């Protein structure tokens, strides 16, 4: 057990944590905010390079089986770091515009990223808990960033109370699983031969905790309020990076921890949750006038689509979920980014969809970008959102869950209405009054353009550097044995 070798397998999180400490010290000494921003971006780029290296690297566990590396875990790390990097890139101009541009924000983002990576690579229930809480506690702080305003403090309070409440359930679940098996390690728990009621109760509570975190109906109540009250670029961070990390952890739990015995399949429960999540998320999104709230309900609906892939429970399903997470991260950060840009123009309340009238011709590039991201979120063909939905639904059909796929396709069709509604306002309505939009900064603009390129590029069965992405993801679940079982 070589210490440095272990550290090497966990290097992206280590870099993020170290950078977080550096940024914290810099903000104490009142270093220029642009330097802090630069340090943050640099450290995230370095972490991203390491994550890319791990993507094709060996698979195994380190730190006394606490941490998994390679395969699903490596892809989860990559997702988290990518999401964080783009959120940081679009955050600077926005936070400056709302006068909350502190160095501590970046420190908190980096610490939260450490937690997320820890969550996405967990191979032990202790690691899962610590990663989840490191992430959550930093996110509670970020949710309350605009604490002088009532909405900001309110969203932080709601996020905190419901988050802590769900942590209680998750932890009780972990305790019961530990009681039933005498271990917290995934590999030991899988080896279980008979299922006690204690284990069933524990897994159920664990899943409830997870459903809270991924905001699946009926545990979604906090999501719209928190997303609305949080600064928009940080909302993007909440909606993508944290959700990606939690879902990857959920995949690891489902594929590596749950014993493969008849009658322990949580497929039924997850299917039911997936169906009501898809239906309710999309239906409520239809009547929202606030764009941030609309995207919040849309993110609940997307959690439903992701659960479809998880309910399939096959290698195809897990692959589909990973691909979907990638697509979701890219297009959702993009959509939130453009909305953040409109919001920066303080003259009008640009979170109300009625005020989007006529925006299509003011800054044409931004309007086109938003259209692309919304089309992709709606799952319309030439974009990555379509391909992601296709993989997930195909996996569900192949696993025999026809109902899930049908509900998924129908609700997707309904969702087109509220995504296109924004575009109708932008292009086909006359503006209420004259106004000018500020210029988007260069970094802001190019970050969004890169996201747009990714959205389009991966929409057409792309040749990911060294083979297609979906083939790479599939290989995680076939070469190393059933359901991604990674031997050390």
């Amino acid at each position, binding site marked *: 057990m070589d*210490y440095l070798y272990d550290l090497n397998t966990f290097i992206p999180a280590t870099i993020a944590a170290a950078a977080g*400490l550096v940024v*914290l*010290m810099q903000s*104490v000494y009142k270093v220029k905010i642009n330097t802090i921003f630069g340090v943050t971006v640099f450290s995230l780029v370095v972490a991203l390079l390491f994550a890319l290296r791990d993507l094709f690297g060996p698979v195994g566990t380190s730190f006394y089986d606490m941490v998994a590396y390679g395969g699903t875990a490596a892809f989860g790390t990559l997702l988290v770091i990518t999401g964080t990097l783009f959120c940081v890139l679009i955050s600077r101009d926005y936070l400056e515009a709302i006068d909350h541009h502190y160095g501590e924000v970046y420190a908190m983002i980096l610490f939260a990223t450490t937690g997320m990576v820890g969550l996405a690579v967990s191979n032990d229930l202790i690691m899962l808990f610590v990663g989840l809480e490191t992430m959550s506690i930093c996110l509670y702080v970020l949710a309350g960033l605009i604490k002088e305003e009532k909405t900001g403090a309110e969203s932080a309070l709601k996020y905190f109370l419901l988050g802590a409440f769900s942590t209680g359930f998750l932890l009780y679940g972990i305790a019961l699983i530990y009681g039933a098996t005498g271990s917290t390690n995934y590999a030991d728990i899988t080896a279980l031969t008979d299922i006690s009621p204690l284990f069933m109760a524990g897994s159920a509570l664990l899943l409830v905790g997870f459903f809270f975190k991924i905001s699946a109906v009926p545990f979604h109540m906090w999501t719209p309020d928190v997303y609305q009250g949080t600064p928009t670029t940080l909302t993007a961070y909440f909606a993508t990076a944290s959700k990606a990390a939690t879902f990857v952890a959920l995949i690891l739990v489902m594929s590596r921890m749950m014993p493969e015995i008849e009658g322990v399949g949580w497929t039924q429960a997850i299917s039911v949750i997936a169906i009501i999540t898809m239906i309710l998320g999309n239906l409520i999104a239809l009547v929202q006038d606030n764009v941030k709230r609309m995207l919040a309900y849309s993110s609940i609906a997307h959690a439903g689509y992701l659960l479809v892939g998880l309910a399939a429970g096959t290698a195809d399903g897990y692959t589909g979920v990973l691909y979907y997470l990638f697509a979701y991260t890219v297009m959702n950060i993009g959509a939130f980014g453009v909305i953040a840009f409109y919001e920066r123009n303080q003259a009008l309340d640009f979170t109300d969809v009625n005020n989007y009238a006529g925006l299509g011709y003011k800054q044409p590039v931004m309007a086109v970008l938003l259209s692309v991201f919304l089309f992709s979120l709606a799952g319309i063909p030439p974009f990555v959102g379509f391909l992601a939905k296709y993989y997930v639904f195909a996996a569900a059909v192949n696993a025999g869950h026809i109902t899930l796929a049908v509900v998924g396709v129908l609700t997707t069709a309904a969702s087109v209405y509220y995504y296109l509604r924004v575009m109708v306002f932008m292009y086909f309505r006359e503006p209420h009054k004259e106004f000018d939009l500020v210029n988007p900064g260069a970094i802001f603009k190019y970050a969004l353009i890169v996201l747009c390129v990714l959205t389009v590029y991966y929409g057409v069965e792309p040749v990911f550097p060294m083979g297609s992405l979906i083939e790479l993801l599939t290989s995680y679940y076939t070469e190393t044995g059933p359901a991604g079982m990674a031997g050390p």
Partner: protein
Amino acid sequence: MESYIPIIVLLGIALVLALLLMSLSRLLGPFRPNTNKLNPYESGMDPVGQARERYSIGFYLVAMEFIIFDLEVVFLFPWAVKFTELGFGTFVAMVIFIIILFIGLFYTLKKGTIYFELKPSISNRT
């Protein structure tokens, strides 16, 4: 029963040492009492009075920091118990842990959360 004798000896030494130090400081140091110095909690809040008194928000901040740094120490105990068997790698890990804690403490000190003024209207001091 005999195994308790060292504890009694320890108690005795503690008592003698405490008395010795207190009397030494009284004999050797300057002794100029005033109202603030003779309070049970010097520069703290008044311990006598109604339970539902309002107190300065500064205490609240100090209490929050205390909770954190008090509980992080819990990680040191298991390590300290098995210190010799755990080897050098664990020592390095714990040093890193303490450095991280220190950075946190340093941050709060620099931000000035523990320097606060007691406003007379809030502290109810007469």
